[in-house]
């Protein structure tokens, strides 16, 4: 039927990227532009005693130097407001986050002053001439240690550094289920801090128009309308309708570019103050200490199983590190996107989970690819592996025993969510087949008999993607609804412009959304242009995160297309002198004809033009051909995965060789297989990165020790084998495309699969658990300790 849906159309956006013509924010140059550099705290916690900017101001080429107090002193219409938190569950403490610190600094990298100069080099020079007098205070960095009595207080208004406590589930019933189990396995572990490292550092350019008192802000964001809303309502003191936010080409986000950042306030404030365009571009060193980071949990978990391998209950307590200030969606991640996912693909009768969200003297933590869901999957899969080991059962066999049967959808979990659709048995069959699971186990057996450390990891995971029904999201504490807008504008010549509130920063929407619209009308994909990332062109947008664009942004376009087809049918019926009910829209040909009279036909382009001349329309019909839909989904979508990893560990060096990896995912219907596979592959690399290499490490004084690409181990090309990817498709019944999220599944499953493989390899040595990343040094020490009679 359709000509483009389900096919690997090559990306229409690629030529500009391939030829160096992309429009990233850092590439923008405006006449008279000034350059901003930000002076940042070298200490994690300190009182600001004074800031002497006089030498910097005296430097030739410096236009101005501003402190946090200057930004607050502008008066009602010209002062910067604090950055708000957009997810506030009951009783949360939300300390103020000023764009530039005023009395105290609370993490290394906290902004203390702003230099504006004629060139970026001069601005950097001036930073060295600012004298900031800091009185050091003791720091706290640990997610759980932050709650200890006597721990340094990050904000006076948050006793014990506790921002929120979020429980979900029936604790009493869960405790009873654990008491009734034949075995209870308990584990305390760390899900380490990660740093997103989108390849494009954040940047912002702003231009103030004095005549119209309006501001244009170009910024590296995944959701320009949300940034405009926050600038207008909270941080900039300029009415929302006077602000235009443009997110042009954005070089990757992975969550880190969702949030409203201080520099998005500072840059337009400066542009207005000096009445010249202003530009700020992060150095990578700044990215490490200012981009919101990910994960960082301390967790205590208990799982109960019967002798025959049935899971009876799961009890989870997590301390989640939120860093020094609550980033835009920080409290959402370790709560509603984490505890609710603890059932995974399994029938677990009783689950209780709770999170203590703490504040520390570290960079703020918020969503990073997967955002809560990889933490849940890693927890659950680790516990299931331990249960299998306890029962001396194959981990896949134990998993299969507990899978939600395919005839039990929609499935209500004990932790709030209702899964839409799935066939986990088929997923397992395909994964065992693709990976050659049985052969891998045989290979492992012979390797073990030779004393080699070979491990096989299996991870089966769920994701709640496509957030969310707005009523549910707002009910949980979200400050905005999570629908999406999609406008289709048909031009007189039958060419089409699509305005979407989703934002593409690598996902390929300019191709996939064009595939959707071309098929809806039966027109050529070359006739469809996708516009995104500009608040002046697109009616409204919620943005791209949580693997939501196809399911919600794409569905909004389907609905708009349906409205347009209905209008076209009416005008065709009028001109062909037939009944609207007899009109047939042929989506292969892009024509409307009278049923049974194929010679009575109008083309899409003819009808589009007819609505422009408007001289022969049905009575009462408005001319013009443009429709907008605000699509609010009925539920999340629930993609699922089964991934298999094989590793071999060098017992002498502790080095992990990832030898094979097979991934089978169910992301529902697929619009473009090439792009979906690309998303899965990229996600896997980030998941492997967490399992083996990546770690945002703070010392006890709050210094980030892995604060550059020299010391933070970003996955490289030589770290991977060739990865096998396949899929099954169980369509989601909750959206007209039948799609589920594809952007995060790889990351969610890969961390668990690879960690599982490494621990499986080390099992013969009696090692039961190691915290990630599973680096050679750590493994080598664990092997040495095991040789001396004990695991880690």
């Amino acid at each position, binding site marked *: 039927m359709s000509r483009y849906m389900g096919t690997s159309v090559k990306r229409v956006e690629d030529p500009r990227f391939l030829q160096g013509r992309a429009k990233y924010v850092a590439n923008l140059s405006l006449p008279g532009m000034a350059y901003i550099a930000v002076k940042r705290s070298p200490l994690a916690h300190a009182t600001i005693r004074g800031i002497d900017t006089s030498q910097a101001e005296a430097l030739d080429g410096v236009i101005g130097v501003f402190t946090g107090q200057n930004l607050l002193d502008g008066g009602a219409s010209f002062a910067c407001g604090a950055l708000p938190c957009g997810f506030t569950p009951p009783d949360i403490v939300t300390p103020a986050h000023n764009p530039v610190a005023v009395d105290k600094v609370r993490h290394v990298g906290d902004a203390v002053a702003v230099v504006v100069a004629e060139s970026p080099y001069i601005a950097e020079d001036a930073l060295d001439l600012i004298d900031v007098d800091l009185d050091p205070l003791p720091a706290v960095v640990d997610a759980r240690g932050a709650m200890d009595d006597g721990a340094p207080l990050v904000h006076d208004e948050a006793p014990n550094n506790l921002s929120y406590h979020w429980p979900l589930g029936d604790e009493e019933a869960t405790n009873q289920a654990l008491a009734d189990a034949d075995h209870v396995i308990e584990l305390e572990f760390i899900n380490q801090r990660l740093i997103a490292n989108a*390849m494009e550092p954040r940047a912002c350019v702003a231009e103030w128009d004095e005549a119209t008192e309006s501001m244009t802000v170009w910024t590296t964001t995944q959701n320009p309308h949300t940034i405009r809303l926050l600038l207008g309502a909270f941080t900039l003191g300029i009415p929302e309708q006077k602000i235009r936010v443009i997110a042009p080409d954005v070089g990757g986000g992975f969550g880190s570019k969702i949030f409203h950042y201080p520099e998005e306030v500072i840059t337009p404030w400066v542009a207005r103050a000096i009445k010249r365009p202003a530009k700020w571009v992060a150095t990578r060193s700044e990215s490490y200490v200012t981009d919101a980071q990910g994960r960082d949990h301390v967790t205590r978990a208990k799982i109960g199983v019967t002798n025959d391998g049935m899971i009876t209950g799961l009890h989870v307590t997590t301390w989640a590190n939120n860093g020094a200030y609550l980033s835009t969606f920080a409290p959402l991640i370790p709560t509603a996107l984490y505890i609710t996912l603890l059932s995974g693909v399994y029938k677990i009768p009783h689950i209780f989970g709770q999170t203590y969200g703490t504040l520390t003297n570290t960079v703020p933590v918020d969503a990073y690819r997967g955002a809560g869901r990889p933490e849940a999957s890693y927890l659950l899969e680790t516990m299931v592996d331990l249960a299998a080991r306890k029962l001396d059962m194959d981990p896949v066999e134990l998993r299969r025993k507990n899978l939600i049967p395919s005839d039990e959808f929609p499935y209500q979990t004990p932790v709030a969510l209702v899964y839409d659709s799935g066939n986990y048995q088929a997923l397992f069959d395909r994964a065992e087949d693709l990976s050659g699971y049985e052969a891998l186990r045989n290979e492992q057996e012979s390797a073990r008999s030779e004393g080699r450390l070979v491990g096989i990891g299996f991870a089966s995971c769920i994701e709640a993607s496509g957030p969310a029904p707005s009523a549910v999201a707002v009910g949980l504490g979200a400050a905005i609804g999570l629908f999406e807008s999609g406008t289709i504008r048909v031009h007189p010549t039958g060419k089409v412009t699509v305005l979407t509130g989703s934002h593409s920063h690598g996902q390929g929407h300019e191709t996939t959304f064009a595939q959707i619209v071309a098929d809806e009308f039966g027109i050529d994909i070359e006739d469809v242009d996708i516009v995104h990332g500009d608040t002046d062109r697109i009616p409204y947008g919620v943005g791209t995160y949580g693997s939501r664009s196809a399911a919600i942004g794409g569905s909004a376009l389907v609905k708009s297309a349906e409205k347009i087809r209905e209008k076209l049918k009416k005008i065709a019926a009028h001109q062909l002198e037939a009944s609207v009910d007899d009109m047939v829209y042929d989506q292969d040909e892009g024509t409307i004809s009278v049923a049974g009279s194929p010679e009575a036909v109008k083309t899409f382009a003819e009808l589009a033009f007819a609505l422009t001349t408007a001289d022969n329309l049905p009575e009462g019909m408005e001319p013009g051909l443009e429709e907008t839909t605000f699509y609010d989904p009925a539920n999340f979508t629930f993609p699922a995965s089964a991934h298999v990893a094989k590793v071999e560990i060098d017992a002498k060096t502790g080095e992990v060789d990832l030898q094979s990896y097979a991934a089978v995912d169910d992301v529902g219907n697929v619009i473009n297989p090439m792009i979906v596979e690309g998303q899965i592959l990229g996600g896997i*690399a980030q998941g492997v990165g967490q399992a083996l290499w990546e770690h945002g490490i703070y010392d006890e004084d709050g210094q980030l020790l892995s604060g*550059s690409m020299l010391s933070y181990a970003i996955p490289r*090309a030589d770290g*991977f084998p060739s*990865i096998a990817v396949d899929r099954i498709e169980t369509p989601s019944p909750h959206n007209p495309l039948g799609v589920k999220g594809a952007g995060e599944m790889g990351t969610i499953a890969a961390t668990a699969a690879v960690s599982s493989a490494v621990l499986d390899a080390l099992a013969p040595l009696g090692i039961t658990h190691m915290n990630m990343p599973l680096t050679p040094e750590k493994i080598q020490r664990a092997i040495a300790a095991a040789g001396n009679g004990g695991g880690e």
Partner: protein
Amino acid sequence: MDVSMTVNGKEVSADVEPRTLLTDFVRNNLGLTGTNIGCDTSQCGSCTVHMDGMAVKSCTVLAVQADGSDITTIEGLASNGQLHPMQQAFWDAHGLQCGFCTPGMIMASVKIADGNPGITDEDVRHGLEGNFCRCTGYENIIKAVKMGAAAMGGQS
């Protein structure tokens, strides 16, 4: 200081501060913003250009060091409106997502593939150790470089 060089076949000269990086020179002085800056420690390779036939990270070269040299940036790779075979291969194999690492990745790949039409997976993975991509997981980049190398047939 005065510097002169050939960039994408065109003679250019300018008076620059001695500390000006080659990457800033091509981006700011020449307006060739296809060369991206992804880090400040010479790890990521986003800024890779060709200098006298070698792939170099232009953030580690001063503009004055490039005085008299022959520079090619991503903007100079296609010729007569035709994509270079390596650009075409990245497109065909879906070797890019956000596109930010892509110019540097392609410039490095052209040199890896030069004289090596049958390049192996291992050679590509080793050869691209100094170019980071956070989107693709490298799988399709490896495919692209092998396809591009074959299409180049040993010629750059």
